């Protein structure tokens, strides 16, 4: 066992570091690992786009993608190395992950070459933003139960329905859409995938204000929206297979939930006072800290195990699936405990008064989202149980019946 790069990996890491040192600012020690608000305002978006273009032009976007579309043609381990190095720098995040992590890989897998030619590069540079239009009001965890209809009309499809929880739809130029093209067959067989211009007539985006007060996701309404058949991805009725490509990429893209971690709660426990001395001296506090340390380090070394497999050119093992299950709940617990450490003043969010820029209070408010987005805790446990442990699937009443005969509500 060792933690060293292979000579090729070391060369790549050095190249990444040179690039980052030249173009970005290193995070200061002792600062929150990620700023609370990055996603707000046109100024933030402008900064993010500018950075994305620099990064893409230097060849660090689409590291594993085909060179035909402007990718580097590199390896998964190079992507991990890049991400590790970038994490040390203070950079805008949150606009392009869905497009580059999920939509564009799906496009590369299913779209015509001239479409890849047209769309991949602008997405890489941040010139165009993509969103993913899968979830609906009555199709969340059960996304294959979606009801948005696409009906064939000449060379076009006409789409009617509603999507929800669409992150970044208010900023998006294009969207990856999953719609029902045949309600008379069982639900997984009646879906088809498309991409569309988000400025098409009949598309209406309404922002949804979240618990934490910001509005990063949206409802998207479709009223007689026309999509050319040329923008269909995969065969008619094969949308579920296309969606699985997207979601598989999501599994690799979704890492730990960002927010205060064990090092940060340690810092707060030193700042906060309990019974006239630093809270860190309290035995009950120390026991909790130890638990989180074990989880944080366990996840870190789990990622190293996955990296080892990638470094050997193998697929990630089943261990890679535990990250979000552990980190989302840990985030919620750390945030809540951090607030408790401040006692009666724990509720205060005024950044002049709340320690560490009210990071724990903000995290408490957004943490519930981490346990839901990208697969709820419950769905992820089902996936581990069925795909990793090989337990039998749940008995399903909806798998064989035509979709239009299923009960709704």
């Amino acid at each position, binding site marked *: 066992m060792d933690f060293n790069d292979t000579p090729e990996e070391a060369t790549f890491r050095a190249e990444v570091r040179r690039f980052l040192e030249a173009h970005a600012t290193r995070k200061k020690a002792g600062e929150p690992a990620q700023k609370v608000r990055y996603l707000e305002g046109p100024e933030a978006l402008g900064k993010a786009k500018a950075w994305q273009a620099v990064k893409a032009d230097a060849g660090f976007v689409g590291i594993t993608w085909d060179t035909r579309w402007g990718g580097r043609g590199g390896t998964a381990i190079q992507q991990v190395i890049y991400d590790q190095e970038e994490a040390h720098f203070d950079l805008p995040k949150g606009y392009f992950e869905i497009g580059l992590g999920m939509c564009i890989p799906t496009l590369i897998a299913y779209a015509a070459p001239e479409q890849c030619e047209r769309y991949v590069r602008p997405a890489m540079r941040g010139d165009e933003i993509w969103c993913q239009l899968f979830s609906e009001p009555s199709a969340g965890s059960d996304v294959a139960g979606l009801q948005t209809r696409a009906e064939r009309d000449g060379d076009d499809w006409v789409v009617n329905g509603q999507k929800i929880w669409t992150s970044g739809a208010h900023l998006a130029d294009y969207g990856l859409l999953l719609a029902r093209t045949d309600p008379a067959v069982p639900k997984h067989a009646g879906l088809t995938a498309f991409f569309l211009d988000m400025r098409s007539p009949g598309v209406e985006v309404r922002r949804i204000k979240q618990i934490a007060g910001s509005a990063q996701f949206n409802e998207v309404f479709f009223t007689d929206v026309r999509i050319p058949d040329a923008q269909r991805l995969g065969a008619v009725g094969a949308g579920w297979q296309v969606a699985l490509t997207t979601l598989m990429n999501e599994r690799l893209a979704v890492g730990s939930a960002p927010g205060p971690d064990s090092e940060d709660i340690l810092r707060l426990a030193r700042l906060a006072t309990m019974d006239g001395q630093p809270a860190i001296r309290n035995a009950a506090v120390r026991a909790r800290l130890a638990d989180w340390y074990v989880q944080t380090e366990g996840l870190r070394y789990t990622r*190293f195990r996955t990296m080892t497999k990638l470094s050997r050119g193998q697929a990630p093992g089943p261990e890679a699936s535990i990250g979000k299950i552990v980190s989302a709940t840990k985030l919620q617990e750390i945030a809540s405990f951090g607030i408790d450490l401040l006692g009666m003043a724990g509720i205060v969010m005024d950044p002049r008064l709340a320690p560490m820029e009210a990071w724990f209070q903000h995290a408490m408010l957004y943490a519930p989202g981490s346990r839901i987005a990208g697969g709820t805790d419950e769905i992820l446990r089902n996936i581990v149980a069925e795909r990793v*442990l090989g337990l039998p699937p749940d008995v399903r009443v909806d798998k064989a019946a035509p979709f239009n005969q299923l009960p709704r509500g």
Partner: protein
Amino acid sequence: MNFDFSEDLNVLRDQARRFLDDRCPPAAVRNVLEGDLPFDQPLWEAIAELGWPAAAIPEEYGGIGLGHEALCVLAEEVGRALAPIPYSSSVYLAAEAILLHGSEAQRQHFLPQLASGARIGTFALAEGPGNPAGEAITARYGNGALSGEKWPVPDGSIADVGLVAARDEAGSIVICIVDLKGPGVTRTTLETLDPSRDQAQLRFDSAPAECLGSGPVSWGEVEHLLDRAAVPLAFEQLGGASVCLEMATAYARERHAFGRPIGSFQAIKHKLADMFVANELARSNAYYGAWALASNAVELPLAASAARLSAIKAFEYASRENIQTHGGMGFTWDMDCHLFYRRAKLLSGALGSSSYWQERLVSHWESC
């Protein structure tokens, strides 16, 4: 990045697993659990023949010098099989103590005996209830004689060589080597939660003893010994936890209730997924511990504490929920679930329970 065991060690693991599947099935564990024998002596002799006790002992002292990563690989297999042998006492503790603190003459004399398995060693620290603490050591050593009482001492009824923590006439901590079959030693086998492993109460009445090395050791050095043993012990726990998950998964697939396999119910699925998560965290922490142990890293106290805590949690959880998944059958003497349930709790307390390791972890983390 190479955060995995080498191909050679994977081969060693496969060989060890096949060997123990054959020589140490649950029936062999039950033989000790239900019988009068304190350990499986033929099994001990067979693994000695294979060189397992010698794995991490340098060649100059009669070992085979495979190193501590190999030791961790073997420990996981010993843990999977619940092997009723004094491997941890003799190898992770006694041999390590002599290697670290013994004089050259003591190493030359004792290590080849422990490496060959001809003699069994143990480390006697506890003097009744409580976690490891320097203040709790009251056994006295002076003028070549040891007096005091130690319990529970793992493998205390069967060990030949005792490494005993005591205080010298100046009140400093020393580790004594005592011939446990010699005069002045009274051994009483203890009834415990897990009778598949031996535990004893040892009484020393001016038992002839010699001090390990040149004299006193610090409490920190004793804790370092515990750190070094905690890593392979975590692998034993991980092995046990893995088997519990395998048992529960297999049962959940074949057992039917309400017209379907119980493993198709989410209540069971989520429980087993949680076992998987805990086991993977424990495995990752244990791997880091193995790296720190094998490379003598300064991170060892933190790495060992995290490995130990993660392993305690995983094995206790897996062994409990394995019984729960098996329902009424899991509660019977004839099912093997309780063998793991017992062993999990035995290993949780060995080397100090969670609260000791939590404190050890945080105190080192604070000073990072």
